[in-house]
């Protein structure tokens, strides 16, 4: 079987070093996933900063002569099959479009998808026109526990899904991009018709169509099938609760625990149905990042779609910008897709310093 040549653009935390922050079994970074996967070789890497690139090269065995400060040069010279784009969203679209136009067959892009919807639209066009397999790094879509949760929700056992509650929405581009994609995943990727939101946005952070910070906020997602998603910041951390007519199923402590409560009868004291804890199905834990890479490999082998895909990524991205638009208009409900595609995230921030070693 073919071994695919992978290259990494953005040799910082998500690209190479997040494994040093985690105690649970990896891989967690893009580079670690390509090294761990038997069907991929990490052959080259690129970053504007030579120092983290050299550290990443040392850690994952990418020789100096295959480390590039210009990603264009890297792609032209190395002709990788798969490219990971682990930069900030402001740089993402240009790199994805260049990769698609230069023969890359599979793209693993960090979230958020891009800095604007206009850019995201261009990404969709290039990726689809050139039939590039695409996955966004919204990991929980590839987490077997959330697959089990989704299966319980849609098994019919608990009756129809009514509401989805995301207890930690956080900043829209960095955190909510995960949460929104998870809500889509758990809703079986039902389209969202409209959203409504309130943000914690500094008045100076939005100048015309330029957004100078990644705002946090909370709001609602109105799915086309009548399900409502509640994107809260309740303080419970990354926990998700699905409310069905006859039961609730929850992911607790960021996917470490799972809880199923179902109607098992009438509470004699109250004369009403009550929920009791029940057995959540067992699943085989596999690091989501490994699954994302294997999903790309499968797509390249078979020609089939990935589990994510560029349209799915765009759906979550629409919600981010829908939240911003709703906030701009006083918190009213706004229909998706939103008309203003030019609003753009443009932050002036120093790059993060990754942890080169486990501390």
């Amino acid at each position, binding site marked *: 079987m073919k071994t695919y040549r992978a290259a990494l653009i953005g040799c910082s935390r998500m690209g190479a070093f997040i494994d040093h922050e985690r105690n649970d079994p990896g891989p967690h970074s893009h580079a670690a996933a390509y090294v761990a996967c038997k069907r991929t070789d990490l052959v080259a890497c690129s970053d504007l900063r030579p120092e983290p690139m050299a550290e990443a090269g040392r850690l994952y065995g990418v020789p100096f002569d295959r480390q590039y400060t210009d990603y264009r040069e890297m792609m032209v010279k190395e002709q990788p099959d798969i490219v990971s784009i682990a930069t900030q969203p402001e740089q993402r679209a240009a790199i994805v479009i260049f990769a698609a136009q230069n023969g890359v067959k599979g793209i693993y892009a960090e979230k958020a998808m891009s800095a604007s919807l206009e850019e995201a639209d261009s990404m969709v066009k290039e990726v689809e026109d050139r039939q590039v397999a695409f996955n966004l790094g919204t990991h929980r879509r590839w987490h077997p526990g959330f697959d089990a949760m989704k299966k319980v929700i849609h098994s019919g056992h608990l009756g129809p899904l009514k509401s989805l*509650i995301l207890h930690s929405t956080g900043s829209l581009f960095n955190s909510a991009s995960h949460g929104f994609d998870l809500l889509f995943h758990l809703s079986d990727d039902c389209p969202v018709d409209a959203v409504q939101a309130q943000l914690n946005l500094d008045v100076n952070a939005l100048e015309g169509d330029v957004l100078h910070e990644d705002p946090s906020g909370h709001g609602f997602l109105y799915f086309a099938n009548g399900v409502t998603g509640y994107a*809260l910041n309740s303080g419970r951390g990354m926990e998700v609760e699905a*409310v069905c*007519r006859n039961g609730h199923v929850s992911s607790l402590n960021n996917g470490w625990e799972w809880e199923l409560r179902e109607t098992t009868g009438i509470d004699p004291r109250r004369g009403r149905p009550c929920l009791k804890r029940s057995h959540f199905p067992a699943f085989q834990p596999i690091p989501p990042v490994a699954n994302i890479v294997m999903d790309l490999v499968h797509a390249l082998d078979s020609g089939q779609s990935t589990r994510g895909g560029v349209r799915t990524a765009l759906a979550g991205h629409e919600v981010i910008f829908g939240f911003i638009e709703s906030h701009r208009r006083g918190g*009213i409900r706004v229909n998706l897709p939103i008309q203003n595609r030019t609003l753009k995230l443009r932050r002036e921030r120093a790059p993060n310093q990754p942890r080169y070693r486990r501390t």
Partner: protein
Amino acid sequence: MKKYRVGIIGLGRMSSTLDEEDHPYHPRAIAACCQAMDQLELVAGADLLEAKREAFRHRWGVNALYEDYREMVQREKLDLVAVCTTASGLQKPARQAPDSAFRGDSHADLAIDLAEAGVPMLYVEKAMASSTEKADAVKEACNRHGTLFNSGVSRRFTRTYEQVRDAIERGEIGEPKAGVHYGSSSLMHGHIHSIDTLCYLLGDPLIEAVRGELRPRDLTIEENHIPFDPNAVYQVEFAGGVEATTVPAAPWEFEILGTEGSIRSLNNGGGILLRKKRGRRGSRDNWEEAPIDFTESTSPFVICLEDLVDAYEKGRPTRGCVDIAHRVTEACIAVAESHRLGGKWIDLPMNNRGLYVFHV
């Protein structure tokens, strides 16, 4: 022990027959509560319908029955009057206003009249009013006359919720930051309970702003009048920054989340789940279940009436005093106002005080 003379207006379900239904914590009907309490003596009742008066006489052995409640109040020298009519004043099964001019508001009108007549203690079925301007008038009348007031928001008087509130007050979850009500409900009949319970659990802070949406979503409000009690969802922003959200679900549950943990009333008051932060898991805080005592409640309606009597004897405010009931009623109506304005946040006090929401 002094016995207080009680009269009831509206001799139907809430005052007389409620205990026939499958609800926890009996007695629930006000007449049954009076029988169960040494401090109260049910001496009179009033209802417009003769059949209801006769049924009440037969069931409770009360002979001082009146068609006109004013006559009852004048003759019977009552210490406590329970207002158990429908909110609109229409007889059941009416569930809708007959026309857009209808603004029946029986609970409010009776409460104002009884306060003006000098009745010292009032139990008023919820919601206390169908518009904010009427709620204003009830509050003004009760405060002017020193009338003690509790309304039938039963969870406020249920021990299982009191245990949750006590745990929050003890600091079990740190500083409260957010609240979630899990439950599907109509606005005035049901969410008056849910908003009141959230207030109660949080220590009755002021409400600063409300937003919400009625069902169906395309419901249009004409002539500042909603002719039925619509289902609704809402968010409430309390003074101090706590924000609460309702999520349609069943059974009813309430969760308050704080800096150190969360506490959730389960299964419509049938249990309590306490979770606390304990170390880290992965890169985030780990929350674990923690032990908490749970004791089943006794009748919330008895507790409510006992609270009225105790407040009267000690000269203290009641647990659900008129200012709190007014606050919660205004928040409920502000949900409808938010819907009317496309889902915008409504700062309280709200400007549109005439918006009328019919309810049973």
